[in-house]
């Protein structure tokens, strides 16, 4: 006889939002904890199912973690995310996880790492950047190339302008599609900037997340630069409900993104049906 409750993967734990950071006009980062401390300890790239009990539940990537809390960055796109954006510190939430495979840390060991992200796509990549920064000796050079529509849309500004510069052998390049009067950084799209910067594919793994259109062109640019499919890692998004490979809706072919993803190499993706 099973005592359902705590062992039931579909039932969330109650937690609280303890801090909210306005990243951009439509992105906020939420720090979430429970009475017992951190809800769980995810690996970089894993996901959490977050809910407002009377509104809804959705899957988000976990962008970082502290000793006592998880950080989840959320862009306003629908009912639940709008309600979350209206929430205040102290708000009770439901949380369950961690879900998904996370980034292939073993495959990345000893390699130079190239991180290419656009917009809110930096959220999942950030969990990996922070992990690699903490385990600096396990990885080669780090290079972060990030872009957003405008200077106001840049997420995690403190990391981009300060924290990641302090990481040993870590280079950060930022671009915006269109600058404003105060912007004196690079202007232009991420894929073009990537081709300009010409990172070497030698002993390197490239990790890219962002809007589908950006990913599409970044993949083309990486190919031009000589990256092979098994050197390119990306994440997929699908609608999810259960998060544990049961409810059926996040399948791409016989893979469930919630369980077997969200992280795939381009080599894996090319073997999967083009339906995402």
């Amino acid at each position, binding site marked *: 006889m099973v005592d359902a409750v705590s062992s039931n993967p579909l039932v969330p734990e109650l937690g609280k939002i303890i801090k909210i950071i306005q990243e951009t006009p439509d992105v906020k980062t939420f720090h979430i904890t429970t009475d017992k401390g951190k809800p769980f300890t995810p690996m970089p790239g894993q996901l959490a199912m977050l809910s407002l009990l009377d509104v809804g539940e959705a899957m988000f990537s976990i962008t970082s973690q502290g000793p006592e809390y998880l950080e989840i960055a959320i862009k306003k*796109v629908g009912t639940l995310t709008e309600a979350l954006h209206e929430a205040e510190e102290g708000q009770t939430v439901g949380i369950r996880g961690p879900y998904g495979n996370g980034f292939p840390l073993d495959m990345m060991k000893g390699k130079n790492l190239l991180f290419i992200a656009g917009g809110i796509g930096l959220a999942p990549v950030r969990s990996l950047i922070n992990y690699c920064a903490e385990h600096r000796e396990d990885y080669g050079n780090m290079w972060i190339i990030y872009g957003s529509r405008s200077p106001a849309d840049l997420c995690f500004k403190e990391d981009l302008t300060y924290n990641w510069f302090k990481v040993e052998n870590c280079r950060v390049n930022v671009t915006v599609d269109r600058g404003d009067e105060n912007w004196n950084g690079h202007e232009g799209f991420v894929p073009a900037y990537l081709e300009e910067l010409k990172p070497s594919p030698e002993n390197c793994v490239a990790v890219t997340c962002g809007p589908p259109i950006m990913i599409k062109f970044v993949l083309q640019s990486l190919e031009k630069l000589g990256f092979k499919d098994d050197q390119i890692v990306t994440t997929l998004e699908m609608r999810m409900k259960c998060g*544990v490979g*049961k409810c059926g*809706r996040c399948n791409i*072919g016989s893979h469930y993104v919630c369980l077997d993803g969200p992280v795939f190499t381009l080599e894996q993706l090319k073997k999967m049906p083009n339906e995402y």
Partner: protein
Amino acid sequence: MLKIKQTEMPQLLNAWAQKSRVFVPQDRGGVSAFLPWDGKGTLTLGKGNTLEPPKDIFFPRTETMYRYQVAEAATTLETMPPQKEQHVLVGIRSCDARSLEIMDDVFLTKGYEDEFYRQKRENTVVIALACNEALPTCFCTAFEIDPGRAEGVDVQMWMTSDSYLVEAITDKGEELLKQTSELLTPVENETLPDAAKPTLKVDVEGITEKLQQMFEHLYWAEVSRKCLGCGACTYLCPTCHCFDIQSENRGSSGFKFRCWDSCMFSEYTRMAGGHNPRPSKKERMRNRFLHKLQYIPERYGKYGCVGCGRCLDRCPVNVDITRVIREIKEVTL
């Protein structure tokens, strides 16, 4: 082996019903379904397979997962008490028995166990009834299912002209039969009735490999043209397991429940930003057939169709999986 007269079956069901909830095929407005036995219903045990599959006994149409109360002071969440009720499921056919194995693969393997499903599965004694006669839509033998003996069940029954022969397969089954031994007569050397021989023949050999090369084929647009997107096929399919999770609010309290969903509905994969990876019925029907004949085989090592024939029997526009299988085998790549 044990034996009981057909006319005495209601007494046996009554006896089981004293300790357990007994589900047995009964008539409900002209439709045969597994319904709880209260001693009064009309049994349809020997009359072909039920229209509705037995999946809702383990995976109800809607099921409350937890309740909550949202309040300024303290928001609370209340889980559901573990299900202790014992069930006896009487008279499932070999095809539906195989479907339970597929459901077990989905709900109980690959890293996570679905507790709602597991509790009900563990608390149920499954009794199969061999088929003497196949319906015109039956094609279980295509998937190497034996209509005369089910896999993975606790008790097997056969129907003779005036009796049922009953054999315990598992300890759980043995235990149940022992409780009602006064109604069951031990017999020896009984000949089992001949098993049904489905006349609908389908050759599935190589279908998965063929489908692996057919994702982009024009066939999907053609075969899905008539589909109404009603979802009847997936609701009646014993192996369709997709569900949605929703909440129902009443003021500041409410409950979270899951309910059957269907990949034939357009909302199913639509994302918060509006993007839908399966925007038309072409992609949706392709997903349904590939799920049964390619994805489940790739993931769990067995076909996701058990040849029960329910979907082809009830599709309002005659989409027929047996014809689809035949056509797929013939299309040129």
